[in-house]
């Protein structure tokens, strides 16, 4: 898996870091809601999937028992909101035995150094 270079990172207005897995809590859903609203307000929004947040990107997710919605329908809406700067921690993926080919969206894997540079480069960052 080749990680992108730091120089390839286009600056955004807002970076949302997603660290929680889907379904078990509302963190991920509420974080993506902030991303969608910020984009609707005309901000350039980037997303970084880190830690257990990478599980949000697995293919084949479904609604849970009792109709509990997942976050995959929200992620499918990102393109409509022009949110196309999607990054993932390469370390988080490999620790979980996952590769970018298994993911539902085209995300760019970042080395640890690039994760730090990404967060340094963005004017506003929220972690969920």
């Amino acid at each position, binding site marked *: 898996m080749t990680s992108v270079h730091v120089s390839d990172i286009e600056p955004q207005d807002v970076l949302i870091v997603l660290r929680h897995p889907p*379904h*078990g*809590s*509302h963190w991920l859903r509420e974080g993506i809601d902030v991303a969608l609203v910020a984009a609707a307000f005309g901000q350039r929004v980037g997303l970084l999937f880190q830690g257990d947040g990478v599980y949000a990107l697995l293919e084949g997710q479904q609604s*849970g*028992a*009792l*109709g*509990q*919605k997942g976050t995959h329908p929200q992620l499918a809406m990102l393109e409509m909101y022009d949110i196309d700067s999607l990054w993932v921690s390469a370390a988080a993926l490999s620790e979980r035995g996952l590769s970018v080919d298994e993911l539902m969206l085209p995300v760019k894997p970042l080395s640890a150094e690039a994760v730090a540079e990404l967060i340094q480069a963005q004017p506003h960052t929220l972690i969920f």
Partner: protein
Amino acid sequence: MLNYALLVHGAPYSHQAALSALRFADTVVTSGHRLVSVFFYHDGVHNASALMSPPQDEVHLAEGWQRLHQDYGTQLLVCIAAGLRRGLLSADEANRHGLASHNVEAPFELTGIGQLVDAMLNNDRLITFAP
């Protein structure tokens, strides 16, 4: 047939705990067992809120718990100490605290931790769902 009790620690719409508990409760009662009581503790007390207003396409947790009471007589016990500080009050408690509104109504009952101890000692099974 076994007598079950549940202990729910998780707030609604924040963690899966309350959904998992309601789902398990449905399985208990439709499998011929008796679900005697559900005790709501910690942030689980928010499950009892009569003001809960989820979007129409999402499960309404408080109504789910109420249905268990109506159909199977399950007691819905809300820890009063955990509830009062978090803003869960019956009409009686609202009066006592000089408040004009309340948000806990029958079949939910505010009660003491003794009822949890009782549920643990006097049922065949106590299953906990935490956030």
